[in-house]
């Protein structure tokens, strides 16, 4: 009578297969952390705040640049600026903790994390960490949910709120398309007139940073920002003072995706918990049914 137990199992299995099929088709990004991945070391003690990097970046990415002469205007430093849809990197000025010394300037942009929160968070896999270290965004996949912005610990991705159609997520892409994928340095590094920016292999930059600090302990504060923060970033910073005074967020050493991915993977490892819950509820439903039937027979 009606569906037999075998049919029930068949339907359950079919349902599970449909669900697993969906999962398998998913384009989950695999994080290939190449030992030779590239990075940039920012030496804040060498930055003169000329903002040539800002100009070069805009030019490279086809954003309106304005007049080159205007970049000498230091009044922009009165307010702290953030990377935005029309400027993927910005130079800010911070008070120097050593009195009688000029204020500190340095550029900020996407840090290109080794374990990027945006890559883990993106619902359609539009973000990816490239083998050369760049974290890039794929316009053809994005649905504009802005979960990457929620996830990013450095508050970097910017969204084109004023576009009704095809709004983009804008952030530094380490000049991946035209430069770093071909071994060329990013536009900002090339434009820098001092030696504030150094492009190179990340492990060499880490060593260089520590050598600089060791050689001139009076000049540098002993911290390479980005070496360990959120599991390491491709951009590394050294400066003459504590990074909290330069408005860098204080972050732990654990990668950000470590907060959610274990939970996700525990639930969906072979679908055990959902299937077990299904079986449990099915069992309760069936037992209750049999009990009721026997009660009815007794009546």
């Amino acid at each position, binding site marked *: 009578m*009606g*569906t*037999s137990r075998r049919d*029930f199992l068949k*339907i359950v299995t079919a349902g599970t297969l449909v669900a697993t099929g*969906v999962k398998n*088709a*998913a*384009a*989950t*990004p695999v994080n290939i952390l190449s030992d030779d991945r590239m990075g940039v070391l920012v030496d804040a003690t060498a930055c003169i705040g000329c903002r040539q990097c800002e100009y070069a970046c805009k030019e490279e990415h086809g954003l309106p640049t304005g007049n080159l002469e205007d970049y000498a205007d230091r009044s922009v430093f009165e307010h*702290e600026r*953030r990377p935005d849809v029309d400027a993927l990197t910005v130079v800010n000025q911070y008070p120097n903790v050593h009195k009688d010394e000029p204020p500190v300037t340095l550029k900020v942009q996407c840090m290109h994390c080794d374990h990027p*929160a945006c*890559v*883990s*968070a*993106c*619902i*359609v*896999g539009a973000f990816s960490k490239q083998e050369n270290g760049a974290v890039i965004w794929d316009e053809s*996949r*994005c*649905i*504009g*949910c*802005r*979960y990457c*912005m*929620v996830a990013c*610990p*450095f*508050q970097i991705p910017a*969204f*084109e*709120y*004023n576009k*009704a159609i*095809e*709004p983009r997520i804008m952030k530094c892409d380490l000049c991946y398309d035209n430069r770093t994928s071909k071994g060329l340095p990013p536009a900002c590094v090339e434009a820098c007139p001092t030696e504030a920016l150094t492009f190179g292999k990340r492990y060499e930059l880490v060593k260089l940073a520590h050598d600089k600090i060791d050689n001139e302990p009076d000049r540098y504060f002993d911290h390479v920002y980005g070496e360990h923060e959120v599991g390491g970033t491709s951009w590394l910073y050294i400066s003459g003072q504590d990074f909290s005074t330069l408005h860098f*967020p204080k972050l732990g050493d654990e990668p*950000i*995706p470590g*907060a*959610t*991915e274990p*939970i*996700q993977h525990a*639930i969906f490892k072979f679908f055990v918990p*959902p299937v077990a*819950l*299904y079986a449990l*509820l*099915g069992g*309760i*439903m069936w037992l*209750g*049914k*049999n009990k009721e039937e*026997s009660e009815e027979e007794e009546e």
Partner: protein
Amino acid sequence: MSDMFKPEPIKRPFLTPGVIILLILAVNGIIWIILRFGFGLGAVTNLDNQHPWGLWIGIDVAAGVALAAGGFTTSALVHIFHREDFHVLVRPAIMTAMLGYTFVGIGVLFDLGRYYNVWHVPIMGNSNSVLFEVGICVMTYLGTLYIEFFPVVTERFIGKVHLKGFWKFLNHPIDAILRWIDKFLEKTMFFFIILGVVLSCLHQSSLGTLMLIAKYKIHPLWQTSIRPLLFLLSAIAVGYPMVIMESLTASKSFGLKAEMDALRRLGRFVGPLLGIYLASVLADMVIRGTYVYLGSITKESVLWTIEILFGVIIPMRMFFWDKVLRSKTLLYIASLMVIIFGIALNRFDVFITAYTPPYFFKTYMPSIGEISITVGLISIEILLYRALVMIFPVIAQPDKNYRPKAKYAIRGVIQ
């Protein structure tokens, strides 16, 4: 049992003063929706790079999903745990969940910058992404809810398909299809009922995992790795208060006799369920030592206290009190407190007010446009509820000669 209840379409005039107000709010919302699609998110909302998510995600989506929990909790109670005495409440609960999830989906579409790419989610999904899991579960569950509601549609139209004129030849085939679907669903509905409960448990909890990736940006009072468990427990706890609130509102609005008997018995579950939630919240607080944040008066400590005191502790005490369970008004107030302070405020806090980005220049306040669209969507939802209970046999009315239809069960081997 004294009176048997038979679900029937409600016969009342559609337009009332309340309905006209809702219509005005709905039209206002629709105007803002047109502006949002015409000029982009920036023109209508106060969202910016510091606050990528606002009112729509906090209320329309996060609170919307939690408040639609009446569907799976009631169907689990009646169909899986065989509490036939609550049968009258299943159809309204499934229908409100169906409407609720439909509007969660619509709310998400308004918030997406590239809403027309939403079909990328099932085919390009990133299984590391919590949002992907939530998205897939919500989409699948929405389909499941439509299936769970479909027997009401077949019941309404079987033998009553009377198309006129040219379309007359379709009468017989449509009727045959409806009968076939009805028979098919009768045999397979157990599968969808269990599926609905499993999917609900999955995405109600994953909704809590969603903000864990914002790690340092969420205030420690709310940022806990057991957030998924807390979201699941609170969603289960708010299911029955939602059913009670909706049932009392509908009976008042349509001038029907409230099903106080069933509602009172349903109310008895709420106290213990809220108790489990409260115990988990407090245990988590003690283990992580976050009570230190309650020592000073800040926006966060005040909101947290309102949430727990007025949304959990006071209503929990009320639901344990017979006087409350016997009084329509008090039962209504207790349910509303759980809904508004316990759940809606909690979800809004976790997603919006507890979120402080590292570079913080201005506070987020929802814009007129955001509020108009949220209010408009809720108004349309209520209007649709009213229309649907007038078209379909959803709300039960006393009927002496009625025997309830055989319930859904796993058809096992009959001894």
